[in-house]
């Protein structure tokens, strides 16, 4: 891998060419807020606009989303200029207006000294009250899990992740990766009496033979077994008791 040097906030770092600015910054202890990006998911990022930074290159400056902007030779990044702060505040205000119930966004906004957005708050339906339509959940389901149970449906202001016809999905394995990845906690996953409920479907859970804790949906075990050929008995015990 070709190494290049990149300057972020006045400090120079060695980095692999074409890695994203956000990853390089975070690895070197420079914090850039972000929502829709997960470094484990190639197809994530570029939608929430929270991670905007100034990219100076070849005598020009552009505001770019650091989560999908590649580091190149001679790139200089500034993450904390008056312009970046002003634009980021604007983005956060829009997000606050869109999903007034999201604690994560309220916290992020508070860090910028914001308590109320300038814009009228969205009434919204409860199901997407916290969803910012960033598609991280659908990307995780498709790319990491490989199940494609959910996809981004509708468009414009109505865009939201959903299973086909909003019915319980036959292909979903109940792994909960979407809920785990969701930056705003918009996906509900409930567990009770050894049954997990997500996307409107109930999943029976496998109980650990040692501690009795329900820890993985039967459907997920089926999926892993069919994909990897791993012995089913492996899942008799939870990770703590293997």
């Amino acid at each position, binding site marked *: 891998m070709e190494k290049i040097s990149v300057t972020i906030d006045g400090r120079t770092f060695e980095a692999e060419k074409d890695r994203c600015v956000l990853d390089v910054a975070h690895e070197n202890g420079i914090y850039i807020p972000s929502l829709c990006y997960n470094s484990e998911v190639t197809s994530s990022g570029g939608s929430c606009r929270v991670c905007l930074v100034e990219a100076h290159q070849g005598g020009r400056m552009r505001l770019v989303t650091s989560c999908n902007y590649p580091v190149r030779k001679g790139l200089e990044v500034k993450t904390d200029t008056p312009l970046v702060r002003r634009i980021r505040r604007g983005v956060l205000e829009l997000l606050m207006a869109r999903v007034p119930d999201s604690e994560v966004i309220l916290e992020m906004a508070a860090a910028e000294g914001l308590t109320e957005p300038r814009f009228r708050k969205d009434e919204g339906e409860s199901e997407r009250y916290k969803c910012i339509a960033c598609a991280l959940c*659908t990307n995780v389901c498709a790319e990491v899990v490989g199940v*494609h*149970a*959910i996809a981004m449906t509708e*468009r414009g202001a109505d865009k939201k992740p959903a299973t086909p*016809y909003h019915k319980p*999905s036959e292909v979903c394995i109940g792994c909960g990766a979407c809920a785990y990845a969701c930056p705003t906690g918009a996906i509900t996953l409930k567990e009770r009496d050894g049954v997990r409920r997500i996307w409107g479907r109930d999943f029976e859970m496998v109980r650990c033979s040692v501690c009795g804790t329900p820890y993985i949906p039967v459907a997920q075990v089926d999926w892993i077994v069919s994909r990897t050929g791993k012995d089913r008995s492996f899942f008799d015990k939870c990770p703590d008791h293997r």
Partner: protein
Amino acid sequence: MTDVTKDATQFDRIIERYEKTEESLLAILQDFQREFHYVPEEGIRRLSEVMEVPASKIYAMGTFYKALSLTPRGRHTIKVCTGTACHLKGAPQILETLERELKVKRNGTTEDGEFTLECVNCVGACAMAPVTIVDEKYHGQTRPSKIMDMVKKQVGS
């Protein structure tokens, strides 16, 4: 409307006309739309099976494109342009007349399944305002007093 039970062969007849690639999906969905006047759920399921493309992906396409409808539609579609020019030239009156005469709300389908009434925002034919489109045919300078006769004449009922 006669309810035809849709079995897989009806969909397969359309699907087999196309190559088994993801690029064919939209064309197939358009054919479904033409044939059934909407994209049936069974059609999406069958298409997903045959093409080995996740149903969620095809459903998402169905919700994205305005030209595709996921709920049953009338045999004929009437689109009233409510763009700026048409609006000024009396599109609201055209729309009201159609709603009253056909006993249907905008974006709804008549009880007998004959007509679906829709509003569209500018079809790029402002010089002909107000424009009403019945199925694929564009009618310009439409008037509330003449609109029903015109529709009946075209669909022959």
